[in-house]
């Protein structure tokens, strides 16, 4: 009897701890939302008067607009290239034997632990040497390297979970390797591919440190524009933009969770 009371108390304490930590996670987002609707240019809690005007200002601000456009270009290209490279390589990694297999894998995965300022600096100097420092190519190349491990992992996990007997069945019925790939393997991998692409696109769109090094005024992405804004101005436009950012990301993730199973994508759920 004593144990069951004790266990119940432990459960309640645990639930409170979890709630408190989730509160800590949400706190900045909640506070920024409050700040975004404050009518005054100076922070005040709680706001005395409320308004939407900072949202209008953030949307109308030129650097944010061009940063958004540049971000879409960079994230679109980088995540699509990473998807292509990651999918083909994950396939080769899972099925084939070839020279330098582990070396290429290690190099590509190491961008996870190399500080982003080092990667950014490397691409910046490299691009400056060949005269590409002001273009999109270096930004996209840098982002491909940064997001590739995530795509690779997502596709690799899906490949591992794929029932190879389905491919063997297609092959034994006379389908060529190309046909097996297109009609059996790729459709079965689809959720992993979409998930990996989405992850890569979101991460690329939000990449800041490396972008700060490799972007120029013309190719500046949204996080870099936001950073420059925070350094120069203190009005709540940035809070308004943050709120839009948080809402968009949470919506995307909720959709990804509903349709793709975020838990499986991140490998935190075992299949039942």
């Amino acid at each position, binding site marked *: 009897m004593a144990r069951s009371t004790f266990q119940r108390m432990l459960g309640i304490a645990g639930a409170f701890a979890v709630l408190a930590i*989730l509160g800590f996670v949400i706190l900045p987002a909640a506070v920024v939302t409050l700040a975004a609707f404050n009518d005054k240019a100076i922070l005040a809690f709680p706001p005395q008067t409320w308004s939407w005007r900072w949202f209008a200002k953030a949307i109308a601000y030129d650097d944010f607009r061009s940063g958004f456009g540049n971000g879409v270009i960079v994230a679109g290209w980088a995540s699509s290239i990473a998807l292509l490279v990651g999918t083909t390589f994950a396939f080769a990694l899972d099925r084939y*034997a070839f020279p330098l297999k582990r070396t290429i894998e290690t*190099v590509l995965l190491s961008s996870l632990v190399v500080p982003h300022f080092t990667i950014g600096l490397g691409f910046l100097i490299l691009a400056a040497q060949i005269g590409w420092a002001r273009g999109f190519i270096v930004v996209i190349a840098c982002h491909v390297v940064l997001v590739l491990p995530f795509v690779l992992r997502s596709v690799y996990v899906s490949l591992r979970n794929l029932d190879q007997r389905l491919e063997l069945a297609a092959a034994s019925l006379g389908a060529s390797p190309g046909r097996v790939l297109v009609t059996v393997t790729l459709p079965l991998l689809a959720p992993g591919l979409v998930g990996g692409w989405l992850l890569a696109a979101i991460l690329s769109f939000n990449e800041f440190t490396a972008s700060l090094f490799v972007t120029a005024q013309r190719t500046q992405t949204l996080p870099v524009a936001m950073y420059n804004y925070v350094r120069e101005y203190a009005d709540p436009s940035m809070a308004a933009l943050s709120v839009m950012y948080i809402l968009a990301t949470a919506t995307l993730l909720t959709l990804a969770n509903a349709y793709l199973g975020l838990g499986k994508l991140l490998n935190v759920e075992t299949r039942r």
Partner: protein
Amino acid sequence: MKPQPFLRTFVFPAALCALGFLAAMATVLQYSLRAYVPGSLEAGELTLDNFSALLKPLYARVFLDTVWICFLTAVCTLIVAYPIAYALVRAQNRLIKAAILIIAVTPLFLGEVVRTYSWIVVFGNNGFINSALLKLGVIDHPLQIMFTSFAVITALVHVTLPVMVIMLAAALAHIDPTYERAAQSLGAGPIRTFVSVTLPLSAPGIIAGVTTAFAWTFSAFATPQLIGGGQVNMISNLVYQLGLASFNFPFAAALSVAGLALTFAILSLLRFAARPLEKFGPH
């Protein structure tokens, strides 16, 4: 040998990416060994001066501070993330599970700038905490929270929390629940079961999480730059100042190389120290 259709087509793009990445890293290494020519982006002759300059107390101090901040952040993140990962894996209700997952993971995708800005709003002199404390009458003038290590580490824990949760949850999800039931049926209480069964079995996740948190904190730039405000400096801030403000690429490169060597040394040390722990883990 099994046929390997499309082998070259499949490996070539990845090899190209790996080559590009290696080229960028090689450039950093090469620049770190060259002299700085003021007013020019080109580097001068071969030299080791950049590395000997790193030994100056000013830079040595930043290196020590960086490692200390990374260490504290990794440990605090582990403590805060474990209950969340545990709840995420053990929650029975699908809605609660999804809610925990989305709340815990969303910050990962917000990027450093939005999160750092949000913490500025929380910590600032007119910020949330100071306003709340003033209203409650706990303090009569605003506390200086910005520009302190406490503020920087709190924000950094917030940054690394999602990755840690993901890695711990991945490890916890793969523990066979029958082990815990076995311990309980043999008379172990909930705390004993946790300490002697669940915790050791999740060791691989702990190691992966701590090392990743360490590496990510090392990589953080916007948080120490904006919240530290020059009072709390990390290697990333120095690299940025030297590289993009004074265009001293060679010295920035030398700092990066030294930082990289330091991260790898510490990470392998962590892995090595954790080996006895890992023996408990599932294989």
